[in-house]
């Protein structure tokens, strides 16, 4: 076959949509390339955003069984009704909000798809969407891709990266339509207390905001109980609750999540979903059903492991002199590295090159991550202990 050679006069970039061309690539991607170059060099990675556990065997086995029984078809656009029933029961028991399986729940290809569906279903071109930052890398791009305008609301280390109603009020602009929440938060591990959420809820009602709450890390809450903003008075009718199986059940590669909300809103999301994705994979849906029905022992075991790993890594970072709050949820520590005399980017690159430990610069999650790095503790005790020793050598090498 002849290799493809572009005509010298042609510029393929001319075909790109302007808003996509203008969208920067994720900062995570740059760092991924850098780490990939060091293959085979005994790199300890604290740079991942997923559990180190493999999906529990009974869940994998249920998926194999589903395949053996010939479950290879499309499902309803909203997802298998048995799964939606199980989701409704789970959400009611764990989050104290009731949703009808028939028309208030949609099963999606991960929370990422649900997020995209919501933006496409609710945001008109030019409309403003608020999100707290540092945040997961997809939030702002999801808004931009639907021609919306993002308003970043900063969260601060002094508040343990909880979102405050004061910061929200300060950042608010006329015309703001929607607020995205991710608590516990990737990358900061920040959460809000019930009282903080009540103030946020009051603000949302006052400003008539629609709330998109991504609670994917809620099962990994180590202290106290997790409160969903959807469960607060007057909020269920203006909230889309997003959740999935990736983190709690170690099912990232299955790509399975869901959205719950008022029927007309879920119906609008379903319209976008049916014309784009059609349905989530039936195999993943079968596995998710097994996870909800029989997976809780595994979740509790994994949570206990994460809890101790968190205590270990946070204690070590603070001993080393890198101030680190104890994240109440998620599996991310977000230490401040300015005491090392380096910017977060220099710290991450230097640590990788000199001591072969990968962490992600906080600015990959927005400018409010300046001075911090994200260190994922979803890895073994041995690796965390060794990684922290290396960080210590790296920090001390400058002193």
């Amino acid at each position, binding site marked *: 076959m002849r290799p493809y050679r572009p005509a010298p006069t042609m510029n393929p970039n001319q075909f790109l949509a302007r808003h996509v061309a203008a969208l920067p690539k*994720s900062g*995570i991607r740059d*760092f*991924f390339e850098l*780490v*990939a170059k060091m293959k085979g060099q005994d*790199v300890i*990675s604290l*740079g*991942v*955003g*997923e559990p*180190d556990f*493999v999906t529990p065997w009974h869940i994998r086995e249920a998926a194999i069984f589903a395949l053996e029984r010939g479950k290879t078809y499309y499902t309803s656009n909203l997802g298998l009704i048995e799964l939606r029933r199980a989701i409704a029961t789970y959400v009611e028991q764990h989050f104290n909000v009731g949703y009808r399986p028939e028309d208030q729940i949609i099963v999606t290809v991960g929370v990422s798809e649900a997020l995209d569906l919501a933006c496409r279903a609710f945001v008109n071109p030019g409309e403003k969407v608020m999100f707290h930052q540092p945040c*997961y*890398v*997809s939030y702002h791009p999801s808004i931009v891709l639907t021609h919306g305008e993002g308003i970043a609301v900063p969260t601060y280390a002094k508040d343990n990266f909880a979102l405050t109603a004061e910061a929200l009020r300060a950042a608010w602009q006329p015309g703001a339509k929607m607020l995205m929440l991710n608590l516990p938060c*990737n990358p900061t591990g920040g959460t809000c207390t019930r009282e903080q959420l009540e103030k946020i809820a009051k603000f949302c009602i006052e400003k008539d905001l629609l709330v998109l709450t991504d609670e994917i890390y809620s099962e990994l809450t180590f202290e106290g109980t997790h409160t969903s903003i959807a469960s607060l008075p007057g909020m269920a009718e203006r909230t889309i609750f997003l959740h999935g199986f990736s983190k709690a059940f170690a099912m990232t590669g299955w790509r399975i999540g869901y959205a719950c909300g008022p029927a007309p809103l879920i119906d609008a999301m379903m319209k976008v979903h049916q014309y784009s994705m059609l349905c989530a994979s039936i195999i993943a849906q079968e596995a998710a059903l097994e996870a909800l029905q029989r997976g809780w022992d595994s979740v509790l075991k994994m949570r206990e492991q994460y809890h*101790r*790993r968190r*205590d*270990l890594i946070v*204690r*070590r970072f603070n001993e080393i002199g890198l101030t680190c709050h104890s994240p109440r949820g998620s599996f991310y520590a977000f230490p401040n590295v300015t005491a090392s005399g380096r910017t977060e980017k220099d710290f991450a690159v230097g640590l990788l090159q000199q001591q072969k430990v*990968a962490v*992600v610069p906080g600015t990959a999650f927005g400018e409010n991550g300046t001075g911090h790095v994200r260190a994922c503790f979803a890895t073994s*005790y*041995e690796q965390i*202990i060794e990684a922290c020793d290396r960080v210590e050598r790296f920090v001390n090498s400058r002193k």
Partner: protein
Amino acid sequence: MNPVLKLLIEGSSLTTGQMAAVAGLTEAEVQQHLEQLKKDKIFLGWRPVLDLSHEAAAAAAVRAVIEVKITPERGGGFNRFADRIARFDEVESCYLMSGGYDLLVFVKGSSLQKVAGFVSEKLSTIEGVLSTSTHFMLRCYKEQGFLLDAGEAQSVRLNVTP
């Protein structure tokens, strides 16, 4: 719960130094806990878990499970016989069972003949033993929590992801 005991129950293979780091104790405190657990006869000792299908590890590679029926004795039940059987070096584990037989005995030997000899000459001749039924193990798929030839895909996790 004793934090060191908790790590032991999980089957962790950490060194005492690593246990100290995980549990937020000093290494000396971990040692103290271990000593106390030994004193209390909760923690009996360390043993490596080996894949005995490997030539290099196959020094005592023949293993058998033996169902033993016993006539219990007045005053002692099964205990005296069970203790007598358990003391043989060939016996790795010995359990009193409910159901069709009384004791389940895990035996290890360097050859089939040695294990067979142990059963016919030692075990079955013990006073009170009514019958034995010996099952030789052919292949191991999981050893004390470790899957053999599992082919888990953990190593394909990317190094940096969002």
